[in-house]
């Protein structure tokens, strides 16, 4: 019962703030709603028993990525509203329709998938460690070591790329 | 940070570290200063024009209000100019007392400078330490002339009053205290890494460039030009005193700081010599009842704590007030260097540079 209340509350907040993110006129407010949205997503992770990921979500998304967004919004100190110029060939309604189609499709798949016999838990290879954090660490440094290294390379490349892009003269 | 456009930042006239009502319009690229426009005049009281309508003795009171943290120096400068105009011989005792007062005033002014300069760079404790010692000097002045800030402590031809009994002993006691206190300031600042990083290489100006800009006093000596009116054109009793003129080498904020710190010590040295060798005798020379200098003009400069303080006075020989009264204020001339100094530095350095020029807005605007 408590779990259901928590879920519905968090879900409503997530969706509500997400709608505000894409609908607010002021970009700074939009960024703020995005932060709130991420905080509630982190709460959802806690509900799902992934505390480590919840902390990472706040640390990386709220503490890092969105600060970057805020920074850029403040730098791009918009003198004229970016929506003022509109492309006559743009079809806004089509966008809504396509998005609706995506929703119907994904929802249908989800409901169909779970009308089938329920998925059975597939425990991964036996791990010598317990606890959410330790398990993730174990998986990252054994089965998923190579993806992990590639991810770190990706971050390095992105870092260099961002510096090259943002710097006026090298 | 603002890569795309320049930001115009209006610093002052209400700003904690513009030392009064200086206004600096900064054009910034990120935090880097592209250009600085110095706007003055917020404290203009027309002292020069006012003086042309006062009699010669009343002007002394007005000169107090120019560099109000070094009022005695202003008095001395003005009185000596008029004495030069009237060819009055000042007795030796008066000359010695003037020297003592000038140097005490220099120490007081430098105390204020080291305090506010350090405060601008973030070291707040030095400010209170320096004010503690400045208070002692103000006490000495109070005992001498009754006022603590605007002294009106000179008269044309000499002194208004002789020094109070025992005053010279108190001055010597103060010198003993001050010696240790200067070391205290230096302990907090001179070898502090953050202080060094904040002041070394900031606002570098070469000797010739400083001369070209008309800088004087410590900002000029910090660039390695050994110009000191006390040595070059001695006035009061400086020709009988032993002292060195400290000069810097690099011409940056740190060297200007070192020059002033050394000036503390040299001033104390002069105060000691003058107090110990204080001659007996009259305190006022032969001054006519009505002061009315003969027609003519004269320029006389003294070394105020800020730099070369010059008075240019024209007398028409008929009226009891000057025909033309003009001051060359060191702060005003030194402030002209700010624009050159702060180009290419950061906002934080502008604050340090204003502090290192040691301007008093009362003197800049007059």
């Amino acid at each position, binding site marked *: 019962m408590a779990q*259901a209340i928590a879920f519905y509350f968090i879900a409503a907040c997530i969706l509500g703030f997400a709608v505000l*993110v*894409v609908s607010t006129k002021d970009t700074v407010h939009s960024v703020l709603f995005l932060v709130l949205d991420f905080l509630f997503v982190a709460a*959802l992770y806690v509900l799902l028993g992934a505390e480590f*990921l919840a902390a990472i979500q706040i640390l*990386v998304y709220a503490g890092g990525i969105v600060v970057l967004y805020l920074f850029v919004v403040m730098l791009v100190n918009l003198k004229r509203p970016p929506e003022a110029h509109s492309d006559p060939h743009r079809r806004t309604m089509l966008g809504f329709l396509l*998005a609706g189609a995506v929703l119907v499709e994904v929802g249908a798949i989800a409901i169909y998938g779970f009308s089938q016999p329920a998925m059975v838990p597939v425990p*991964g290879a036996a791990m010598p460690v317990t606890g959410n954090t330790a398990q993730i660490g174990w998986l990252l440094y054994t089965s998923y070591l190579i993806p992990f290294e590639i991810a770190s390379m990706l971050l390095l490349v992105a870092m260099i790329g961002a510096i090259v892009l943002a710097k006026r003269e090298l | 940070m603002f890569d795309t456009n320049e930001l115009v930042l209006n610093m002052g006239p209400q700003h904690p570290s513009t030392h009064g009502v200086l206004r600096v319009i900064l054009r910034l690229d990120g935090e880097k200063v592209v250009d600085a426009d110095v706007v003055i005049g917020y404290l203009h009281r027309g002292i020069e024009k006012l003086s042309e309508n006062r009699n010669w003795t009343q002007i002394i009171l007005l000169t107090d209000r120019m560099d109000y943290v070094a009022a005695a120096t202003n008095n001395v400068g003005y009185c000596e100019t008029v004495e030069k105009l009237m060819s009055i011989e000042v007795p030796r005792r008066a000359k010695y007392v003037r020297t003592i007062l000038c140097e005490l005033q220099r120490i007081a002014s430098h105390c204020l400078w080291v305090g506010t300069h350090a405060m601008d760079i973030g070291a707040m404790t030095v400010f209170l330490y320096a004010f503690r010692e400045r208070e002692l000097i103000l006490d000495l002045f109070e005992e001498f002339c009754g006022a603590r800030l605007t002294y009106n402590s000179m008269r044309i031809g000499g002194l208004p009053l002789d020094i109070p009994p025992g005053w010279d002993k108190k001055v010597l006691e103060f010198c003993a205290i001050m010696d240790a206190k200067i070391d205290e300031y230096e302990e907090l600042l001179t070898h502090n890494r953050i202080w060094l990083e904040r002041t070394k290489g900031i606002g570098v100006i070469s000797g010739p460039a400083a001369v070209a800009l008309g800088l004087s006093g410590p900002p000029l000596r910090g660039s390695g030009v050994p110009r000191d009116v006390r040595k070059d054109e001695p006035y009061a009793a400086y020709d009988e005193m032993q002292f060195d003129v400290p000069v810097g080498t690099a011409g940056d904020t740190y060297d200007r700081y070192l020059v002033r710190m050394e000036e503390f010590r040299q001033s104390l040295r002069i105060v000691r010599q003058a107090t110990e060798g204080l001659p007996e005798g009259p305190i006022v020379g032969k001054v006519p009842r009505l002061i009315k200098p003969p027609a003519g003009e004269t320029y006389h400069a003294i070394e105020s704590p800020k730099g070369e303080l010059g008075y240019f006075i024209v007398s028409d020989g008929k009226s009891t007030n000057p025909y033309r009264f003009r001051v060359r204020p060191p702060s005003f001339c030194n402030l002209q260097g700010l624009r050159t100094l702060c180009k290419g530095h950061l906002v934080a350095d502008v604050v340090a540079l204003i502090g290192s020029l040691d301007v008093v807005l009362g003197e800049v605007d007059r």
Partner: protein
Amino acid sequence: MPITTTHYILLSAALFTIGVVGVMVRRNIIIIFMSIELILNAVNINLIAFSQQLQNGIGQVFAIFVIAVAAAEAAVGLGIILAFYRNKETVNIDEMNVMRS
């Protein structure tokens, strides 16, 4: 009614759709980037819901990779926005129709 994985997946689908709407309808490129972050979060919710359903941590590991990719994407993307803004003084995606500047 107990909360099952289906609930999470429906939530994720809805969040995903909101993100898609943002990408398709808004013209401010910064908002579009934020919508993409929403989409990535929808994916993460799915991954973690499956992770809980399957009782192993693999979904969470993938979610970490997604977050890493999102961070990289944000850094480079915002760098591009800044570079673009410097040349064209706009963040309107409709005006971003030339590759040269």
